[in-house]
């Protein structure tokens, strides 16, 4: 998977604007990471999410569509998709819960312990659902996410005036740029096919 970007963009945004990223966070964002590690290693050691938060708060996880019960024996490969959620309602919500009493009811889609895979630079797609979008989303965006120019255009266009007004500064490939210029010149500044690294600094 791609581990470098053609263009780097850094935005300084008001922290309330995290909600503008919710559609993107639900669909999933690509992160440059060291792959070949356990899910717990990725979340705790690499992404800096406290272990107690992972244990208590992220109670529903899927690795490539399979429900995870054991955080230390499920391994991240280059190109994996990891979806994270808090506890879910309903019978099926409970069934999906990590290590839950009803886990047997979804045995066919349970992620079974695997052998450790080779470590190396790679990317992982992380999807955030419900409360985790607000709680972990800022952290991932601070760290930097890969996205296509088309995704960036969609994000900034959908965010409209609120994103534009809440943007304090823009740095494009190391050079400061007036915020208005970025929004006004999006089609000329960003190629939809181009892969970008977006970082967000949060204010307030």
């Amino acid at each position, binding site marked *: 998977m791609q581990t470098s970007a053609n263009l780097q963009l850094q935005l300084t945004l008001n922290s309330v604007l995290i*909600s503008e990223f*919710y*559609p993107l966070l*639900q*669909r999933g964002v690509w992160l440059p990471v060291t792959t070949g590690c356990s899910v717990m290693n990725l979340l705790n050691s690499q992404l800096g999410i406290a272990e107690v938060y992972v244990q208590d*708060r992220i*109670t*529903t996880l*899927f690795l490539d*569509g*399979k*429900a995870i019960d054991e955080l230390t024996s499920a391994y991240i490969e280059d190109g994996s998709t990891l*979806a994270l*959620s*808090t*506890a*879910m*309602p*309903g*019978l*099926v*919500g*409970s*069934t*999906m819960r990590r290590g839950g*009493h*009803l*886990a*047997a*009811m*979804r*045995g*066919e*889609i349970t992620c079974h312990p695997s052998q450790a895979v080779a470590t190396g630079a790679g990317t992982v797609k992380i*999807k955030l*659902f*419900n*409360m985790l*979008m607000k709680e972990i989303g800022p952290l991932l965006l601070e760290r930097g996410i890969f996205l296509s120019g088309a995704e960036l255009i969609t994000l900034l266009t959908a965010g409209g005036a609120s994103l534009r007004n809440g943007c304090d500064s823009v740095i494009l490939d190391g050079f400061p740029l007036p915020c208005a210029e970025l929004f006004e010149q999006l089609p000329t500044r960003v190629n939809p096919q181009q892969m970008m690294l977006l970082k967000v600094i949060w204010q307030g």
Partner: protein
Amino acid sequence: MDKILRINMGASGGPSQSIEKAGEFTALGGRATTSMIVAKEVPPDCHPLGAENKLVIAPGMLSGTTGAMSGRISVGCKSPLTGGIKESNAGGQPAQVMARLGYAAIIIEGKPATDDLYKIHIDKDKVTISVDNSLKLMDNYPLIEKLRKEHGDNAAYMSIGSAGERKMAAASIACTDPELRPSRHCGRGGVGAVMGAKQVKAIIFDDKGCQQRPPKDPDGFKAANRAYVEGIRKHAVSGEGLPAYGTNILTNVLNEAGGYPTRNFKTGFFEGGTNISGETQAELEVKRGGLATHGCHRGCVIQCSGVYNDKDGKFLTKQPEYETVWSHGGHCGIDDLDTIAMLDYLDDNIGVDTIEMGVAIGVAMDGGVIEFGDGEGAIRLVRDEVGKGTPLGRILGNGAAMTGKAFAVERVPVVKGQAIPAYDPRTVQGIGVTYATSTMGADHTAGYAVATNILKVGGDVDPLKPEGQVELSRNLQIATTAIDSTGMCLFIAFPILDQPETFDALLGMLGAFYGTKMTGDDVIALGKKVLNMEREFNKKAGFGAEDDRLPRFFKTEPLPPHNITFAVKDEELDELYNWG
């Protein structure tokens, strides 16, 4: 709740009424009351729309008290959709008001000799049954507006729309919410058609002059209620996830698990899922000046509902539930929330079950009536066909099974004639066991996650063994039947499942209210008793082991992306009711 109101719509000279002592039903409620009365009084082989069927309405054990989450109302009858026994419940205000009026149940029986349409008004002094043919073929929203002008805003209303009058097997009974919108529905199984067959358009409950029901031990009740509310509020599901996003919080997770039935159960992943997720829905509701957090009845502390406004900021419908968003959304290949919200409104207005209606439309799409993803077409089918009672509308309004036959569709997702809801049983095989064996037909709430690990229903289960699927489902169905019998909202399941002290608080509330000590064993015994009665009714109605099956395509068609089939054997399903 010491009395039962019996109304004979077929009495000579016009409907008659009588009051009976509640007897054994004084300290019961919900599904226990409705199923016991139906099992005792309705001939299992009767025609569901005939005079011998009865419509039984019961509040919960703690309805009409200050107890939180106690506002579910149950409706029971022989189902015109499944042909078996049916209990369908809803939120809204009627349970609280009916209980304060002192009724443990209302039994509506017989059938009028004329084609007059009736309304029933109940206050603390009398019951008035009157002809009102001006209400004929009115749908729920305009109907309630009209009734409010006559009966006021302090009443609670139960009503049927045009689908109920037309006796469609997907017809629901609407219950008004605190804002007097007919937005909460006893949806499943065609209970609205039975009310229509009795020619009762509306029941108006007015509790003016009535007090909250007093507990035997007020201090004990107050303390237990406080602990119970604290337990609900501190839990991540009932105190956080549901209030923030409603039940539609499940869309993303089911989709990620590959268990989100898409385009009539062809795949388990919908590419448009995030466009209609609870997270997206909540953001949109707030942006438009609606509400992402709202209670369906007074006394609700979870507040899992909401208010969905249209693009102009005007009320369109209540927050569509997960199952509704799925049935009209992913199941039909539609990823537009405004289209789904409009369909939810139309369903509520016409008075049809949103699950049955959405699944029927998806089946019709599979049969070539319209294309998958055709939102405008789906609206037209509900509004102009079902809503106007055209021949096509009557096919759709009689549910997915009827629609499948009419359009020669092989893949028809029903059990006992009732549409399978929003969780593919190939991905979550345990829920497939419940779909197959429930006395109610396919029903996602029949085997809810209710405290089985605490109650140890039927002993401990090894969740790692495949045969645990049947045992888990059995335990869940017993426990759920018991909770349904208390008339409490099922969403209390999670604080109860995870927090033993919250379960104890619930038992404490029941004990303090009725002056008896209730144990977990009592709860389980009640669940088994009710299930046995329902099972016996269904046997006498003609159901056998062959009806406790999923449609064959679940066994033969692998579901992408995991490519799995339903693997629980028939003989294992047949073991479900062997609990000794």
